[in-house]
């Protein structure tokens, strides 16, 4: 009995140790529970009705509808704070309790990277409650990281370009007026009618 228990303990610690090593070597495996929006759309039949974990940036508006709310959560490259161009936005719509939605303070827009939330809930490829929308009905919404402001410092090159173009267009406008005035006074050649 003692021998068999020690055998189980020895082997289970070996298996746990092996799993830990694998997760350390392959972080993707460690985060395997978090599903991407791309995967949800491409394999929607597989994930339909399953409980999934989804993580990303809240963008736009938190739209409270009675006791519940809609939030739109992006898990694209921009949600990780990158401002480098990396294609279209991608994400998922989340139907959650209004109280959970009220935890969100910052939503992503021109001036902000929104709060990063982790959502756990049931994925619907065509939600019967919401007219066939693809959505996640959240059981739990957790703010993982607070959003932040994005600074947009004024670019001096743009000020210079705008100034030069203003001068050019003003000069052309003035020239046009002078030519018109001279034509009216008969000092400039009248074009063929």
């Amino acid at each position: 009995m003692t021998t068999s228990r020690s055998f189980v303990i020895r082997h289970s610690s070996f298996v746990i140790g092996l799993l830990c090593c694998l997760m350390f070597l392959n972080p993707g495996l460690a985060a395997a529970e978090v599903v991407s929006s791309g995967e949800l759309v491409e394999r929607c039949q597989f994930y339909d009705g399953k409980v999934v974990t989804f993580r990303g940036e809240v963008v736009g508006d938190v739209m409270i509808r009675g006791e519940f709310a809609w939030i739109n959560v992006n898990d694209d490259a921009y949600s990780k704070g990158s401002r480098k161009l990396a294609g279209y936005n991608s994400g998922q719509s989340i139907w959650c309790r209004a109280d959970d939605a009220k935890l969100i303070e910052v939503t992503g827009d021109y001036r902000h990277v929104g709060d990063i939330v982790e959502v756990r809930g049931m994925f619907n490829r065509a939600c019967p409650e919401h007219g066939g929308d693809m959505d996640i009905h959240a059981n739990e919404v957790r703010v993982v990281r607070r959003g932040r402001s994005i600074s947009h410092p004024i670019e001096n090159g743009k000020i210079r370009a705008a100034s030069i173009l203003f001068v050019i267009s003003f000069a052309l406008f003035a020239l046009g007026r002078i030519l018109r005035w001279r034509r009216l006074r008969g000092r400039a050649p009248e074009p063929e009618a």
Partner: protein
Amino acid sequence: MIPRPRLADFKVIGFYSGKIVFGVGLLMVVPLVVALLFREWNPALDFLIGMFSCFSVGLLLQIVCFTRRDLTWMQGLVIASFSWLLAVVLGAMPHYLSGHFGCYLDSCFDLMSGYTTTGLYLLQDLDHISHSLNTWRHLLTYAGGQGIIVIALTFLIRGTAGAFKMYVGEGKEEKLLPNVIQTARAIWLVSLVYLGVGSLVLWVIAVREGMSLVRGFLHGVWVFMGTWSTGGFAPQSYNIGYYHSLPLEMVTMIIFVIGSFNFALHWAIWTGNRREIYRNIEVVSFFLTVMMTFTLVVVGLMRLGTYPDLMAIFRKGFYHLVSGHTTTGFMTIYSRELVRQWGDLAMLAIAIAMAIGASACSTAGGFKGLRVGIIFKALFQDIKRIVSPETAVIVQKFHHIRDIILEEKHVRGAMFIVLSFVGVHATCTMLGVYYGYPAVQALFDAVSAGSNTGLSCGVVSPAMPSLMKIAFIAAMWMGRLEFMAIFALVGFIVAAVRGK
């Protein structure tokens, strides 16, 4: 022997194109004001640069090419197509300077898509763009829907007999009033009244659905512009699916159906001729083709069991079908859902609807209901002729504002445009297949671009090959101007190079 264009031809084309480009610069005042209101300083500079570039080029052309000559047909058509190209290249400046585009070609793609009310876009990270850039995107579709030449005719060009020739070059032929300038103003009157009412309704819905007053107002105006113009641009990357709102979907559907009707029909109803809505060939044709294509969509979706109930089939299937048929391009599903959930049959049904399109002289694209109606009437006439005695005289009529006897010139004109569209769709599809996209997906997005719709199953993306981007830009341009003006421009260039 082709006669080489004279200097006077170039001057007329340059002068009027200059006026239209100046008008595009004036349009940028609207997003500039929005940028200043929301303290978006960099976008404000982008719009100043774009605006002064348009003013400089416009004024330079007007000074160098000053003329008092009236337009010939050829000049009017060339001005229409050339000024659209200039407006795209110069109008793309604020887009490019925003930093949301991989290259200048991508920003030109979005500009052409906006002016032509297509709604496809290559802009990246849409969810983080400024309010002013979003205003500019939607204003483009609103202005493009009425026609940038219509704008110039309304505000910048005094009545000339040749003005009608530019107006026709932009794909519109209807004269609501005897004078083309008055017609242009009538088009604007109709559009501005709807803008006020429609934006207000959408604002109320947006606030009721949980948006703040300010954002609700902005979204109301933007979505109205995208809807009325059958443009399909939306302020967020989720498109109309962002709002998760049945009332908003219903109201947008009503607006884009109204927007897709002929301005002459609007005018007839405004001036008391309400029976026109039941008798007009375009309305009848639209109703029949919607029913036929919707049946195909339902069969396709039910066969695959895509949606759990009839309400969902209606909400998704009918919305996207009508969105495609009116060439709007609004979506409440992800692009890739079309491929993963809808299947080929439903996608092909939507592609047929997009190809047919809505009414002539409206904000919509496609073959147009009038032409489809004429071709079917001609077909019935031929069948009647076959089954009737040889001595019988078969007269076929169609109703468009008034009863018109169907003649060969109507059928020839309709067939010419329809075949040109088919050629453009086929070319873009082939190109997509050449680059490795599956045929149905390549066809879907090609038809969407050529018919100025904007629905996409994922072929159109910033990663698309440059040649495809150029082909799609050309398809949108040709589809909007309906070929004659483009053929005139090509003929003019050939004559300038090879003429004697």
